[in-house]
């Protein structure tokens, strides 16, 4: 069991070491080293996952959701860590102590969140995650980034505060029902049927809004474009692929309590509403979006909408949503990192000044384009499979209106996003920027790796992953 804590202790230890290190050039490699050290541990934990299944009365444990996410997160972080040294080499003018340290703290806290089996502990972890990303967002130290950081912190904290209230409500629902008051996930699910319904409902609303704020569901998404727009691409990738996914796991855990309580219908309707609204908002704001990094943020909003939508549909839809967590994360990684390359080259985020990227930096621009296609669900990339699975679940449930709305919104998003992406990559570069850039292999390798993952998952799904997805689905929906 204590081995599970190692998952967050390794990064935290490395964080300490990084903080203590004096050489600027060494720190990025420490981040990479931490990611590398994490892999064997994660591998071991995943192989012997039965040993780490949450026990009654234990605060930490690895439920199937955790199994899925811990593995995914370590891969994502490894890819992002690969990007750290070449990125920071270009940013020598900035001290990187805080950045590298906080990166590792952030990673450690995500892992801690995933293994927590206590509602309060989860809250502590996610709040710590939020706080550790503040300095990451502020890496560029200018007016815009301070503004983004401020908004991120304030809105995130308000949301998290609401999640705390929701957690308390959850506890109160047990208390009110006269049960022994406990905030252990296992206990709550065990006694779910006897929880007080009104408090449970209220708790779920608050938890969904609280964790939804971290996910970036509309209308709590307002921090997202600012934060993703101003953060280094690497941080954007980790936020969009890591933090939001963890928050989604939180939502799923509370949803599974509702399911266990036999009272999932209202939760589903609620998620359905938030899901569709998020997709619609994302679509509306993506149309004529000039800032391609903000566009990525709205794309993230859209995908969060898809996640809760899939959950709301249930069954295969939930399976698709869980699969989509992985696909979205990897595809977002491709997008954010390649966008970072483009941003660095053109020194602008606006399509007014960034055009013809294919001419200037063919590799990064191609990856950006492919990432766009992957993220919008073009077969044979994996997001297609997950979105399609969600769609067919909706159709199988006879929710034709929902399916139609889903498809229409996907089209809207595709058109909106496509216009911006194509403006960036196609055409002639603006005057003065025609000279082809030298693209460093180190900055392309992680992106290619992520893209390869997205493609691979679309063409062939490993058996262990499939069974992990199904068992996670079964656990959330309370089926054996």
């Amino acid at each position, binding site marked *: 069991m204590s081995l599970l804590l190692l998952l967050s202790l390794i990064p935290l230890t490395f964080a300490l070491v990084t903080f203590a290190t004096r050489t600027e050039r060494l720190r990025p490699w420490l981040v990479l080293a931490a990611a590398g050290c994490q892999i064997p541990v994660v591998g071991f934990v995943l192989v012997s996952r039965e040993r780490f299944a949450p026990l009654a009365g234990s605060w930490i444990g690895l439920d199937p959701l955790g199994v899925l996410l811990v593995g995914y997160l370590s891969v994502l972080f490894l890819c992002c860590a690969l990007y750290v040294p070449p990125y920071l080499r270009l940013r020598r003018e900035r001290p990187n102590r805080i950045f590298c340290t906080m990166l590792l703290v952030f990673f450690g806290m995500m892992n801690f969140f995933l293994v927590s089996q206590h509602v309060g502990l989860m809250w502590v972890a996610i709040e710590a995650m939020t706080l550790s990303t503040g300095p990451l967002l502020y890496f560029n130290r200018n007016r815009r980034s301070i503004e983004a950081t401020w908004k991120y912190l304030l809105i995130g904290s308000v949301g998290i505060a609401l999640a705390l209230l929701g957690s308390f409500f959850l506890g109160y629902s047990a208390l009110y029902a006269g049960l022994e008051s406990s905030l252990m996930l296992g206990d709550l699910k065990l006694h779910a049927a006897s929880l007080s319904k009104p408090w449970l409902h209220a708790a779920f609303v608050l938890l969904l809004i609280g964790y939804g704020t971290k996910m970036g569901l509309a209308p709590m998404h*307002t921090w997202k474009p600012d934060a993703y727009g101003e953060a280094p691409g690497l941080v954007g990738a980790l936020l969009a692929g890591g933090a939001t996914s963890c928050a989604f796991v939180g939502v799923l855990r509370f949803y599974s309590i509702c399911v266990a309580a036999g009272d999932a219908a209202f939760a589903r309707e609620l998620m359905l509403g938030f899901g569709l609204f998020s997709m619609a908002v994302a679509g509306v704001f993506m149309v*004529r979006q000039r800032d391609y990094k903000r566009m990525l943020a709205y794309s993230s909003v859209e995908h969060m909408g898809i996640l809760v939508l899939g959950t709301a549909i249930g069954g295969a839809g939930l399976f698709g949503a869980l699969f989509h967590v992985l696909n979205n994360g990897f595809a977002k990684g491709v997008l954010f990192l390649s966008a970072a390359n483009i941003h660095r080259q053109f020194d602008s985020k606006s399509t007014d000044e960034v055009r013809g990227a294919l001419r200037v930096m063919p590799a990064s621009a191609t990856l950006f384009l492919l990432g766009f296609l992957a993220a919008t669900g*073009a077969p*044979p990339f994996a997001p297609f499979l997950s*979105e399609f699975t969600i769609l067919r679940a909706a159709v199988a449930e006879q929710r034709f209106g929902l*399916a139609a709305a889903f498809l229409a919104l996907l089209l809207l998003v595709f058109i909106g996003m496509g216009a911006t992406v194509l403006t960036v990559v196609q055409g002639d570069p603006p005057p003065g920027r025609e000279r082809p850039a030298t693209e460093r292999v180190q900055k392309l390798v992680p992106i290619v790796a992520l893209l390869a993952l997205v493609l691979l998952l679309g063409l062939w799904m490993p058996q262990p992953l499939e069974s992990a997805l199904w068992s996670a689905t079964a656990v959330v929906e309370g089926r054996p």
Partner: protein
Amino acid sequence: MSVVLALVAVALAGASGLPGLVLPRDDAAADRSAALLLGLAALCGAAATALVAVAGAEQTLALPWRVLGERIEVGLDGLSAFFLLPTLGIASVASLYAVAYWPARSHVRSARRLRLAFGLIAGGAGLVVIARHAFAFLAGWEIMALAAFFSITAEDERDVVRRAGFIYLACTRASTLALFGAFAALHSVDAGFALRARPALDLDTSRALFGLAFVGFALKAGAMPLHLWLPGAHATAPTHVSAVLSGMLLKIGIYGIVRFASLLPPLAVSDGVFVLVLGMASAVLGVAFALGQHELKRLLAYHSVENIGIILMGVGLALLGRTLGHPEVEQLGLAGALLHVWNHALFKALLFLGAGSVIRQSASGEIDRLGGLARRLPLTALAFGLGAVAICGLPPLNGFVSELLVYLGLLRASLLTGGALGLLAVSGVAALALVGGLAAACFVKAFGVVFLGEPRTAAAAGAREAPPVMLVAMALLALACGVLGVAPQLAVPCLEAAIRSFDPGLAPRLRDAAPFGSISIAAAGLLVSVVAMAAWARWRRLRYAPRTVTWDCGYAAPSPRMQYTSSSFAAGLVGLFRWALRPQLEAPHFGAGPFPLPAGLHTELPDPVLDRLTLPAARWLVHASTWFRWVQRGRVHSYVFYILVAILVGFLAARGGLG
């Protein structure tokens, strides 16, 4: 065996751009290797098709490939084989053409990308055709569609190209999403993604399924109200890509419609009627819009809309015949549609390649800036002329045969059904006749203004014949047009195999149903008279006949600019269809006073669906969406307020539980 061959062919086609990735950017060997690989692919495809036509039965092959626990299968039956052949054939001929038309040396920027995408169009389309599972189908579909996008936007530094490319991209995504819906619905029926017949499906479900799929496929095929991407994409793509788009990509949409219909039990009568009427509208309006075009490639593009309409008329007949139990109508309609798929692929590709050689050699695709090219590009002119005759459905070339089959289907339907359906079939005949007349008008205009008379610009006057490779590519297509026109019997085994896989209950006997022998006789008669005519001209030594000026009615200083232009030529017919086409006319203003000012006439024919409907609607939507932007105007206060509102709404939604 045949399915393995097909798979090899598809793989070869898809990989045809790969050698170019390792060769230097400006190496001509890359182009040649792509053409070679695609040629090999076409040969493999032809062999596979021949095997299927002889052996008949469907062959399937389970690939060692599982997606989400589903085993992916490919297969080759008559229908697949029928579409596989033109898919690879047209692509290989076009890639041969591209060796000279789009050489790596002079297109360093785009050649590599274009070559790769071009091969992927063919590979993706081939995968669609042989796929027996939804995932493989959709994967092939999207690879094809996206590769086509990258091919269309090869010259992405031009604004018009980017614009057309984006419209195409939006449309193709819409069609893909519709297919998502269709396949999801298919799955909900019996939890299977395999593309196999579902004979027990009830009518309502079948119709819904067919409707969804039809929207997706018709969007790709470019049937009339859904053709909005087609003219722009065809006009701005590199010409060998236009040839493939028109010759093959659109046909994959038709394949989808036919394949989907074959999986479902017979649909309602109204579905067949709908497809038939849509085909009629598409055919008539397509050719009417083609008449008013000034640009050669755009004109050809609208003719694709027309020909897709003719194909859809055949498909509609086949659906009607199957529902009503008239096997003769069914097989005639389907055979007409399918044969027209081949024929249109051949002559439209031929026309595009001809247009490409005109554009390459005279630097313009504006019809009214050309002229007199028959003396400068005699072989291109001959090829284009043959293509023009073929597309008008005139004997002795191939277009006539397939149109005749559709005519026969319509006539049989009118005799067999009577009543409203009979009248519909009759109006189908009239529509087809009108289309024939208009198409002839349009192509005599295009051919005449571009190739005949005097050159209207210096560039046209200085044009020279296209390089031999391009001529060989055109000659191959022209030859195929001629062979299919004179000996349509050659296609019968393939057609019958395809019809059998469409409706296993039907034993097609095309040789009885259609007068192929008489067509051959008539075509041979025409050919004999052509030869006799040439012999006579030689005997009369017409080549050395005394030459003089064209009769000028006494006006002594005629100039090439005084020739009848394409706009003037079409003005009468465009005027007749004014109610539908709504041309924008800038009438000449001569000014008041005794001496007229310099004046010009300018006509424009905006597309009704794209320019009058879709784009304004899109603009309105963009405007509306920018209105929502005030929501996100930077005030963190309001952002917190939104969260508060979300809580309230959430509680209200959950009130049932709270109260």
